[in-house]
């Protein structure tokens, strides 16, 4: 995807004299003083068409005077261009952009939580992932990955069984601080001021919340007067981990973010890293990647279908959908050796070559699956209960899509054809033919139809990849091992000395990336998953920001459910389809 063109940049420069335009190898950055930030953003949004708020985060430079640099990523849907806006937080403060884009509220909360940057004018600046009373800012460079051990937490299993010699297991007695229930209660109270009759907690440990999301509803009878969402019940510190491991070591962690679509995550991640390291990927690997990413998309949509229908009382669909999921997981397991968190891709290609017989199995699946889809349609699409529960519920307008940074099927359900596979083709998406289904009304039912149609389109892509792969010779390379930063496949490491030496070097010293910054994203089943990598050279990213589609899609929830009922909340949440591993990271 191109970045802001010269003409626009000049126009912006005429309007704002002090804005500096910087063109790096992979991005275009606008530097602005923070007093002018809000004006510039309004200008970009309203005059220049940079309507879609993609992401915001900070970077910590402890040796610089101002220390924190705020970064905003915007997208112009008409020109298909992106731009990065950067500004320094003077005195640890930045102006809030929530008046310009409501979804900035969540991103700012997160930056406050992780860096301690204060946002002037934010309506309720609270901890995003940690709890009220937590006293550290984890993503600052002076904070250690393991946190600060403070309390003694012995293993109870060992305590009760009696200490054994040798010990039953090996663990550190001193642990980071665990909040008390009072801490959590304070967190809850700080979020929502009761206005109506009753505050209902939904989650975090509730079967209907698709993981561990914590909802607060202020209810008047059954009507929701206001609501808020507390996240962080699965905040594992992914971005901090990324700063502490080599590029190739972070790949398995991406599997565990949006664990339902592991291969799609990997694909987004390797796309970003390959851009940074400038690695060419062999043709076969590109097609296999595309094929597996699409199988994974079907797999993910099946889980959404099964659980979404289960939430609304249709148990049959759940059992049927899981039947097909098992088939896809078998294909993945046969190739990657793992069902869910597969770690199948590698920087520069694939970990393994295609397993014997994969193409036949995929063919058989392709033949069978359309009939299964028909079954789901028969069960739901004209089902009267389903229609009553989903039609006209949670309507998202086009403006909402841009204001809240919505992407993926949620944006497309409202008629915005935003699909990274088309706009910035990665892997082999530029060479295959498929359509982007869009909805009209933008309600839950439309999002349902969009996802159902996406499965059909995925089948088309898989079919084309399959035909291509059948034509390629079996011995075609599946990893670009010529590149100095790409590991050779394992079998060759045992046979060739230079491969062994090279792998040894990468495992010990990492890939040594050039300095620079990249942003690359992929179209995940849950929207745009982007990786922004800021490298200062060396083998570990200085900052790796994960732009989560699920987080931004969820950010519209409080607005949509206002004046709705609790029953609608379930249908609505199912249609937004968040995965907590990705929203919380």
């Amino acid at each position: 995807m191109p970045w802001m063109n010269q003409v626009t940049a000049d126009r912006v420069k005429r309007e704002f004299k002090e804005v500096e335009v910087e063109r790096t190898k992979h991005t275009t950055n606008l530097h602005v003083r923070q007093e002018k930030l809000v004006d510039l953003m309004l200008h970009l949004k309203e005059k220049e068409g940079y309507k879609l708020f993609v992401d915001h985060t900070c970077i910590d430079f402890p040796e610089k005077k101002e220390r924190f640099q705020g970064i905003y990523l915007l997208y112009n849907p008409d020109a298909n261009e992106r731009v990065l806006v950067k500004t320094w937080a003077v005195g640890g403060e930045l102006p809030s952009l929530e008046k310009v884009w409501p979804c900035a509220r969540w991103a700012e909360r997160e930056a406050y939580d992780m860096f301690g940057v204060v946002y002037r004018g934010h309506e309720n600046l609270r901890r995003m992932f940690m709890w009220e009373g937590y006293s550290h800012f984890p993503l600052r460079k002076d904070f250690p990955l393991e946190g600060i051990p403070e309390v003694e937490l012995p293993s109870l299993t060992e305590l009760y069984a009696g200490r054994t010699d040798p010990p039953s297991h090996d663990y550190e007695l001193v642990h980071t601080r665990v909040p008390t229930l009072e801490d959590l209660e304070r967190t809850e109270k700080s979020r929502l001021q009761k206005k109506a009759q009753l505050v209902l907690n939904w989650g975090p440990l509730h079967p209907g919340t698709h993981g561990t999301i914590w909802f607060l509803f202020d209810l008047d009878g059954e009507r929701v007067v206001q609501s808020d969402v507390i996240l962080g019940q699965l905040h594992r510190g992914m971005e901090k981990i990324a700063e502490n491991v080599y590029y190739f070591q972070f790949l398995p962690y991406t599997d565990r973010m949006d664990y339902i679509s592991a291969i799609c995550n990997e694909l987004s991640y390797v796309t970003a890293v390959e851009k940074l390291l400038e690695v060419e990927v062999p043709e076969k690997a590109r097609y296999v990647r595309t094929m597996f990413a699409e199988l994974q998309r079907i797999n993910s949509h099946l889980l959404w279908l099964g659980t979404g229908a289960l939430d609304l009382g249709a148990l049959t669909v759940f059992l049927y959908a899981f039947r097909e999921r098992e088939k896809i997981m078998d294909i993945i397991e046969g190739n990657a050796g793992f069902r869910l968190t597969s770690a199948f891709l590698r920087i520069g290609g694939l970990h393994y070559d295609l397993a014997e017989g994969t193409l036949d199995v995929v063919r058989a699946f392709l033949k069978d699956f359309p009939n299964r889809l028909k079954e789901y349609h028969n069960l739901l699409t004209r089902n009267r209960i389903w229609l009553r529960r989903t039609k006209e519920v949670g309507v998202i307008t086009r403006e909402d899509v841009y204001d809240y940074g919505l992407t993926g099927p949620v944006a497309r359900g409202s008629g915005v054809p935003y699909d990274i596979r088309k706009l910035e083709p990665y892997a082999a998406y530029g060479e295959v033919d498929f359509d982007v289904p869009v909805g009209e009304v933008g309600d839950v039912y439309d999002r349902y139809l969009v996802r159902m149609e996406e499965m059909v389109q995925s089948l088309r892509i898989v079919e084309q990849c399959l035909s291509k792969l059948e034509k390629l010779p079996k011995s075609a390379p599946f990893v670009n091992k010529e590149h100095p930063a790409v590991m050779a496949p394992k079998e060759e490491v045992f046979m060739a000395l230079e491969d062994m030496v090279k792998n040894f070097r990468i495992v010990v010293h990492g890939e040594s990336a050039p300095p620079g910054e990249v942003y690359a994203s992929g179209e995940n089943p849950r929207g745009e998953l982007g990786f922004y990598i800021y490298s200062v050279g060396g083998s570990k990213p200085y900052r790796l920001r994960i732009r989560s589609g699920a987080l931004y899609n969820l950010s519209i929830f409080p607005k949509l459910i206002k004046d709705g009922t609790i029953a609608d909340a379930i249908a609505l949440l199912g249609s937004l389809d968040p995965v907590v591993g990705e929203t919380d990271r």
Partner: protein
Amino acid sequence: MATLNSNGFVLTTVDELLSWGRRNALWPLTIGLACCAIEMMHAAASRFDLDRLGVIFRASPRQADLLIVAGTVVNKVAPMLKLLWEQMPDPKWCITMGGCASAGGPFPTYSTLQGIDRIIPVDVYIPGCPPHPQGLLYGILQLQKKIKEKGVNKYDKAFEEFRKDMERQGLLPREVVV
């Protein structure tokens, strides 16, 4: 030991009967925390079908006697999970599914609890990241075996100690009397 005599009667002890009933009707609480929960769902769904072992997921802790901790437990969720555990009636058991719940797994970070056994006594640990549904099945069978061998009473003392320990740390919620 149950014995069958020539009149067609089965003789057994009350303890034995209770443990037989309990181990064949383990009702876990429906809780999913992270990736492992997806495999737990698969274990319950079409192919692996946990129902045939008498394992039926319950949505309320009051009806459950098994806690399958499937997924990463972060510090923030730990007190809530413990609250749920305390709401489950005795006797109860706990299975950790996956590396995260067992010992922090791949996340030795500031926000992750390094093993659920820091707050809840665990009966069976299932390794894996995530374990295969078959792994979960095996873990449940192991728990059944354990119940058969050890009976169900041995937990009373443990719970008493556990409660005291929580009280000492000031972690016991005020309104919940265990």
